[in-house]
């Protein structure tokens, strides 16, 4: 192609995803094989008989929509959008067939499939961007986001931070000899092996606690004082993941292991030295805070951690986990302080959390969802005690920027502070009459997690819920009906559609129209497969293990969930950075072609899963 077309065709291509990821030279070569065509409004693209050439289509101006053969909308496309990936696949499956119709007069650029394949053979590193498989495409999108971004402080790899000084000793080695090695190497930890397999861990603290204080003979084999089956991390794990393992399990060191090779050790000292993990310090500070005022002063620190996590492009599930650990720490500490104020609880109880907090999916907008399960022998006077305690804790959480729940799903509400038997009866009633009762308003309590008090109460309640659901035929299908009543916005980027959709149509509510849909679907799969974990992805995985969801579907959903979560978190981050109140309303114009394309993929996956779920659970 002569030079003079370059500013017009090449520059256009160079701004849109995935062409913008390609080297200039490859962009130019692709531009050279483009064919340009024009569709009048209503005109349809004739896709492939066997002899038809196949193309990747780029919308230059105008808009189009794709529909499946059953008439279901697959996607709406505007300027800079691409389609035809599916047709790039060698084995295209008939169910993936769709038609594409111009909604307005549309100028289309066509990149011939055969030319593209030839070029990508020359540049194999870039082939993934054009993968016909939506999973691969979403995955490569996440990769790009992570690798292209500046490395945030939280995303260092364990191998970059950990020490390579570590003692490895056989389990029969005498304790004293291991202690000598620990001193010699200046490592606080020894990894204990047996026939080359890692079987345990001994720290210098263990030496103090389990040997000196316990008065144990130094000549005994180290096996007797080791912590068996130690937690380990891989050198490529994120430091953040390691720190979250440390926090969750209250351990101070983690061996860095690849296969059965012990490479080094990561300790809290390393984290301090490298100043990486403010989250660890925040949780320490929370633990030792004396008053609500002390705790509420920590809010900016919490926000700083959230921003650093998002800026570091840490994956959404880790962010959710870290923010949950922090929220747990606040809530626990407040309960302890409350007990100091109100005196010892008069009867057994469990403080449980619900909703996103229970799912380990806390973010900067999360409000509080909590409840109290009282022992069945609780008296009226006992209930008054817990009312007071709950009132105090909920208000204190609010003061720490965990806003009161607008739906009043809080322990302070007498409805959600009940003896175990009443809870069970309520669950039975909801499950039996999903249509008539307020179940749909109380889905938040379909996932609960124990936080404080008697853990067995929550377990018993969960078991009761699962068994009630198992014996009901109406419950799941009514949940499905409810959850598919909202469709993902396949056409948000088309201005025509935006105007049609009524109030608040100028922004996309990413929670209502995307994340909640997946969370709801996950709940259905989690409850029907009896998943004990409540994390959205864990529920889908559990459903997959129980053959409710295909491998392919699972991977698609994983990619979609991760991507949407990331978009939402970035949106909150931007708002916080600009000093605004973070919300879930995203202006579609704020998206680049990159986000748009991948969000569309993600929305399509949600729509597919809804359809699949509808069929699956209606049949039952």
């Amino acid at each position: 192609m002569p030079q003079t077309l370059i500013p017009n065709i090449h520059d256009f291509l160079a701004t849109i995803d995935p062409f913008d990821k390609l080297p200039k030279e490859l962009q130019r070569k692709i531009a050279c094989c483009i064919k340009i065509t024009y569709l009048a409004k209503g005109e349809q693209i004739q896709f492939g008989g066997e002899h038809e050439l196949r193309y990747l289509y780029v919308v230059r101006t105008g808009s189009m929509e794709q529909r499946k053969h059953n008439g279901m909308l697959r996607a709406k496309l505007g300027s800079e959008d691409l389609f035809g990936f599916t047709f790039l696949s060698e084995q295209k499956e008939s169910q993936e067939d769709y038609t594409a119709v111009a909604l307005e007069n549309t100028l289309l650029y066509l990149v011939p499939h055969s030319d593209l394949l030839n070029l990508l053979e020359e540049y194999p590193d870039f082939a993934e961007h054009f993968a016909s498989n939506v999973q691969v495409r979403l995955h490569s999108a996440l990769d790009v986001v992570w690798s292209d971004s500046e490395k945030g402080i939280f995303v260092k790899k364990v191998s970059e931070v950990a020490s390579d000084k570590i003692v490895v000793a056989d389990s029969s080695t005498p304790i004293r000899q291991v202690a000598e090695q620990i001193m010699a190497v200046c490592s606080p930890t020894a990894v204990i092996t047996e026939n080359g397999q890692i079987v345990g861990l001994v720290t210098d603290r263990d030496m103090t606690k389990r040997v000196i204080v316990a008065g144990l003979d130094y000549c005994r084999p180290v096996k007797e004082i080791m912590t068996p089956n130690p937690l380990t991390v891989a050198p490529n794990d994120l430091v953040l993941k390691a720190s979250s393992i440390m926090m969750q399990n209250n351990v101070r060191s983690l061996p860095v292991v690849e296969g059965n090779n012990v490479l080094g050790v990561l300790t809290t000292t390393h984290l301090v030295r490298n100043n990486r993990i403010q989250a660890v310090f925040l949780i320490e500070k929370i633990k030792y805070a004396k008053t609500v005022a002390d705790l509420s002063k920590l809010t900016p620190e919490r926000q700083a951690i959230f921003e650093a996590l998002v800026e570091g492009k840490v994956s959404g599930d880790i962010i959710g986990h870290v923010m949950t650990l922090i929220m747990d720490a606040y809530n626990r500490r407040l309960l302890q302080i409350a007990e100091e104020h109100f005196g010892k609880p008069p009867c057994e109880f469990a403080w449980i959390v619900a909703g996103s907090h229970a799912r380990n999916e806390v973010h900067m907008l999360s409000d509080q969802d909590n409840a109290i399960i009282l022992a069945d022998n609780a008296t009226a006077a006992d209930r008054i005690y817990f009312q007071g305690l709950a009132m105090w804790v909920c208000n204190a959480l609010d003061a720490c920027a965990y806003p009161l729940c607008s739906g009043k799903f809080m322990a302070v509400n007498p409805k959600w502070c009940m003896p175990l038997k009443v809870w069970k009866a309520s669950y039975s009633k909801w499950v039996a009459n999903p249509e008539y009762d307020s179940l749909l308003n109380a889905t938040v309590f379909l996932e609960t997690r124990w936080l404080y008090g008697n853990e067995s109460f929550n377990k018993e309640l969960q078991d009761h819920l699962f068994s009630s659901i198992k014996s009901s035929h109406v419950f799941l299908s009514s949940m499905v009906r409810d959850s598919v009543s909202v469709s993902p916005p396949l056409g948000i980027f088309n201005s025509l559609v935006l105007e049609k959709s009524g109030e608040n149509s100028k922004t996309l509510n990413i929670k209502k129209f995307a994340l909640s849909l997946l969370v709801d679907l996950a709940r259905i799969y989690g409850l029907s497969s009896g998943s004990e974990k409540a994390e959205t992805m864990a529920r889908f995985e559990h459903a997959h293990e129980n053959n409710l969801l295909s491998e392919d579907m699972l991977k698609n959903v994983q990619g979609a969930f991760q991507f949407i979560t990331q978009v939402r978190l970035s949106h909150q981050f931007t708002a916080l950075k600009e000093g605004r109140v973070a919300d879930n309303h995203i202006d579609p114009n704020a998206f680049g072609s990159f986000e748009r394309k991948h969000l569309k993929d993600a929305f399509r996956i949600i729509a597919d899963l809804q359809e699949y779920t509808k069929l699956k659970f209606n049949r039952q």
Partner: protein
Amino acid sequence: MRRIFNHFHPLNKLQRERERYLSTHQVPDNIRVLLEAPLPDLDDDIYSLDYLSLDFETSGFNPKTDSLLSVGYLPLINQQLLLSEAVETLIHTAKNVKAETAVINHIVPEMLEKGEAWNVVLDAMLTEAVGKVLIVHGSIVEKRFLNHYMAKRYKLPPLPLLWVDTLQMEKSLHIYKDNNGTDDFRLGSVRERHHLPEYSAHGALVDSLATGELYLALLKQHFEGADSSVRHMKFDYTRPL
């Protein structure tokens, strides 16, 4: 394949003109091939024809005093403009290029020194035009310079070629629509009215691409839902002065 000719259809007249041209003049082989290629059948679908969208950049309107500076063209086949077949060539010229034309088309004399001889460029274009309908936006300049070339190089009268002119098509659309008479028929303005993208740079090839896209848009508007056979197409048969 026997065509059902309407004797008075201008296409038929053009065919007779071509035959007369070939019988009355000594015609070199490349021109003979061009004129012997069959014209479209009246029952052909207008969308199925092969086209060559082209544009000349010149230093003025008068071929006797002004120069042809560059030629750009690309084929439109099966409703697709093929960028891989696009051509743009600068023409080496002896005449002095007026400074003000360089402002418009960004062609400065130094560039033209590296250009090719006009006979090479235009013969290549005529070879590409075999069996194709020529698309231009405002055909006067292209026709005048092509006629001038035929006279100078081959001592031949203007070629009986088949043209479509997007400027005329746009004008007649406006008349039919009884529109509030715009008089801005520049390529960029017309494209804007049809919601086609703005192409920033100017040049023979960009303009020929822009014209090709516009032609498709105009065709679809003109034949919307109607019989799109060649019989109903208004080609450009005008002779430039």
